[in-house]
């Protein structure tokens, strides 16, 4: 890998360990999410600290869940999206970073790369019976090397709500907002 051309997100821990719920504007890509039309009145998304430069949040979908990662780099946004993925299943703060899993993906564009990254993590969660709470990604043209750190599912402690079947192409976007921050999002099927 050409380290000079790649961008890397450091291992991230939830900046708001109390997982406070906030109302208000979501991520700020220049192309706003097309969900606005179907936004459900009164909905307040689950998200991490909205003041943090890197953060994650969920957005509504009628039967499933939208996940969104925001970061100062594309790699950070991917890592945050992965954390949002975990938060669909369980509260990330309950998951101890005990074991690291390495993931590699190749895709022809950033959006499919995001879906591949998330689906690779879903596969690792399903086959290893693990949950992850810390993520890092290193992105270069056409590919990604990623790391996920977590532990085996402990039903009593993690209280997992639901399995994730797959990351979908619905509401799929990877892009930079007017403020220069990266946003990576899609809907996951649960």
């Amino acid at each position, binding site marked *: 890998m050409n380290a000079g051309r790649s961008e890397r997100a450091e291992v991230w821990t939830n900046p708001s360990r109390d997982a406070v719920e906030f109302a208000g504007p979501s991520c700020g890509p220049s192309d706003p999410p097309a969900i606005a*039309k*179907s936004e*459900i009145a*009164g*909905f*307040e*998304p*689950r998200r991490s600290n909205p003041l943090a430069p890197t953060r994650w949040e*969920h957005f*509504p*979908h*009628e*039967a*499933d*869940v939208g996940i969104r990662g925001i970061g100062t780099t594309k790699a950070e946004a991917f890592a945050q999206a992965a954390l949002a993925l975990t938060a669909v*299943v*369980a509260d990330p703060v309950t998951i101890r970073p005990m074991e690291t899993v390495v993931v590699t993906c190749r895709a*022809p564009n950033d959006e*499919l790369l995001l*879906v*591949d990254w998330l*689906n690779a993590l*879903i*596969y690792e969660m*399903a*086959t290893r*019976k693990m949950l992850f709470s810390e993520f890092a990604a290193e992105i270069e043209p056409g590919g990604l090397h990623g790391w996920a750190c977590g532990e*085996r*599912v402990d*039903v009593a402690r*993690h*209280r*997992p*709500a*639901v*399995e994730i*079947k*797959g*990351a*979908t*192409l*619905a509401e*799929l976007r990877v892009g930079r907002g007017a403020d220069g921050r990266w946003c990576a999002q899609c*809907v996951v*099927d*649960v």
Partner: protein
Amino acid sequence: MDIARFKHDDECTWRLPATGRMCVPVVIYASEALIRQMDDKVGEQAANVATLPGIQTASFALPDAHWGYGFPVGGVAAFDAEAGGVVSAGGVGFDISCGVRTMLTGIARAEVESVRRPLADALSRDIPAGVGATGSVHLDDPEMDAMLRGGAAWAVERGFGVPADLDRIEERGRMAGARPETVSEQAKRRQRDEMGTLGSGNHYLELQEVTEIHDEDIARTYGLRRGEIVVTIHCGSRGLGHQVGTDYMREMNLETAKAGLTLPDRELAYAPIKSALGQRYLGAMRAGINCALANRQILMHLARRTLAHFLPGRDFQLLYDVSHNTCKVERHPVAGRERELHVHRKGATRAFGPGHPEVPSDFRAVGQPVLVGGSMGTCSYILAGTTRGDERAFSSAVHGAGRAMSRHQALRRWMGRQVVDDLAAHGITVRCPSSRGVAEEAPGAYKDAAEVVEAAEQAGLAQRVARLVPVICIKG
């Protein structure tokens, strides 16, 4: 949904004429109250489906429709291979052959009351459910392929159930045309330890009481009696089906882009039925159907064993097993001529009417049982397919109540413990490892199943036979 653009054909039929790139109209079957509750996305997605090559008659949405990926959930679309028709992984969905089976027990509600708590605890222990659960059946490579070819018939051969069960399952328990070699190693790996697991989310195993009979003759034919208990299982093809959906959705998306096609929604990605990719997907999807049929067969066997321990000497007979997320080759009339079609049902149940050769001989005079799931606290229904259903929506009917709000909204409104206590106060015992999961699946998060099945009946899709209410609910 804004209904201003729709023509109101009759009380439960709403038609959006074909315009622009649409090849056929959109037809939504729903009461005015239900269609108004639907998100605008349902109409938008159904209209997008109407643009796909080779689609026949109409893009249908049923009374329980809600917004999905590409295709609406509760959507039906049929394609003619001879007219350039296509197959779409998004039109089947991620949980291939997710479905419902209902088993008769002959047990009176009063008998269950005497063992309610220990029975609920035992079922909760014996039915692997929830995130991270593994089954007791572990498949090596040859057995995996045998299961993917054999479906429920494979499970019966391995001792999970009896041959008579197969008479009461679509395709007699084995979907022909499955090609395990078209299923990725990743998909098989995901399934290796998940045979005989319930899953999570809206999947469940319930003991339900038959509380109302709407049609005495059909109920008698089905073996349904007021006051008796049935066992209903709702789950699908587990990790294997999810991975098949993921793999082929990606490949179809890339191929669609390579062909220079612009789609209104990427989840509509497709392959021509006659293409190599289309044929590979069909082979893998059919293997996914067999996986779901085998999985539900194993789960029913486990439930039978537990029930027999508490209530011995009974005859636990399968009533029927239906699949929701499928693409099946069937013959239907189009413009007065019978044609072979690839019928996509996403969140919709096949509902063959009286006389159809695919309906088990015991039921052929009255039509196929259609099993409609409710939620933990609301009623479920058993319907029967109608003759008219063929012309209405290629013999398709509703599959469940359908969500009325997102999981997040439900979480904001209910606490899991409170939901469990409220249900207990209404005579419903819930066992679920996740209180958050219970809150997300709170009964109030779903539409009223009664309204949905009434609309289905008025639309001529199916007719009501019996109403069921939950007594014990095991969730993942």
